[in-house]
């Protein structure tokens, strides 16, 4: 079987194709123009994953929302649940960029970290 994907690794947007056998083993990946594209196609075929960016509540600063991201990708099916889990999080300023705001979100082994510093207001 051949499946096609569009690479989200960079703005080029390469059209990728993955051939697999009936057992689900990947036989060939085509259409990539870099190593990351080849890896993305293989990953997307068996276990699609995404990084998540959103904001969490911030207290004690001039800003009221703190932008955050997952420090690595999480399963695509969990993206909405990750955001839901982050609705309960409250962070108190000051915050450093990269500071962990939620450890091991939903048991994925991935931390959620702040993407900016905020001084105490």
């Amino acid at each position, binding site marked *: 079987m051949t499946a096609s*994907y*569009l*690479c*989200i*690794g*960079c*703005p080029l*947007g390469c059209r990728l194709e993955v051939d697999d056998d009936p057992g689900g083993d990947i036989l060939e990946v085509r259409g990539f123009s870099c190593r990351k594209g080849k890896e993305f196609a293989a990953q997307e075929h068996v276990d699609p994953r*995404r*990084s*998540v*960016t*959103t*904001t969490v*509540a911030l207290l004690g600063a*001039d*800003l*009221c*929302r703190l*932008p955050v*991201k997952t420090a690595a990708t999480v399963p*695509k099916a969990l*993206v*909405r649940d990750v*955001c839901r889990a982050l609705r309960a999080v409250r962070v108190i300023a000051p915050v450093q*960029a990269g500071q962990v705001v939620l450890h091991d979100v939903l048991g994925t082994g991935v931390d959620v970290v702040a*993407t*900016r*510093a905020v*001084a105490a207001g």
Partner: protein
Amino acid sequence: MISDRPHLLRSEYDVAIVGGGPAGLGAAVAAREAGAQRVLVVDRDTEAGGVLLQCIHSGFGLHRFGEELTGPEYAQRVLCEALDDGVDVVTEAFVLDVAADHALTIASPRHGVVTVQARATVLAMGARERTHSAIRIPGDRPAGVFTAGLAQRLVNIDGVLPGRRVAILGSGDIGLIMARRLTLEGVEVVGVFELLPHPNGLSRNIVQCLHDFDIPLHLSTTVVGIHGRDRIQRVTVAPVDETLQPLMQRAWEVPCDTLLVSVGLIPENELSQQLRLRIDPATMGPVVASTMETSRDGLFACGNVVHIHDLVDFVSAEAELAGRHAGRYATGQATPADNVRLLPGANVGYCVPHTVSTDRDHVVYLRVRTMFDPCLLRLRTPDGTVVHERKLRYVAPAEMVNLKLRPALLQGFHGDSLIVEVVPR
């Protein structure tokens, strides 16, 4: 994003920069590297960083930093570079005027109205969004119609949702990003409607913002009516024919309490017009030389105020160029004037810079008018002699094309203008 010595404002600078987004901050660092001792960045917001601060998604910096950063991370890097280099970054300050001798009139609550004398100035005010009134949608004028970037600010900075059931007009990247953003916040996005037969944003955003969340994209379809008394209640959408005229007999109603409009950006030109700079009607930004100098001596410009960029990485590259030449101008090492005019030819909407020099390397940014599969990017003289040709796999109006010009390519060319065109292969 914290400065050690915020709000320091001297009375004299070598280079003064209007706008503290990635363009202004990048130009500041480059001006320092070119030898300018005192460099000032003035920004009207409460902190520098520009629109990147509300662009909390990732996708920035692949070219410049070799890794994928979020907007705030990219902003923090360029701000830290500027502050570490000893640049004065003054926020909550607004440049009212730039005199011919580079005396800047600045208004701020902290400093009042003051005059700062510079030797060179860089305009880096960025862009503003086109609004729905700019595209003239018929119907009522209720609350609930927002530009996509305003909605982005409301959600990401102010923590306020614009509505509960949202239709999006235009498939520009900000609209696509907001479709995902709102979905993640529990808002129902009923669809993205694009007038043209192809999406206006990057393909990666179609995939990761729409497909991932099953948000429908209706191509060759537009909003032809807005309905609601106090708050918007529904929009009428209709497919369009090849001439982009709506087919009203096939129109349908879409209930929604919010309409986001993502129909492009236009350079923030108030100051450029007030200074009577030459404006290119195609870019709607100032006409610039290869040094990014505008039609006024020692007044440079870079970033979205010149033309709308797809990627901040390209803004940073252009800012470096403008900052370097502003720094040189301010320290008495101005670069000689260009000797070749670049003219947009077949299928090319515009090219920037507007002039080049045969003795230096340049990167020319251009935008095509229509989509092409394999095609040729061609540089020719007005009488038809081809000077340079390059094969392109695919071009689209939504994706800026870069043309690297080296002196070797122009060997044997002695004219004073060159035409840039894109032709089918």
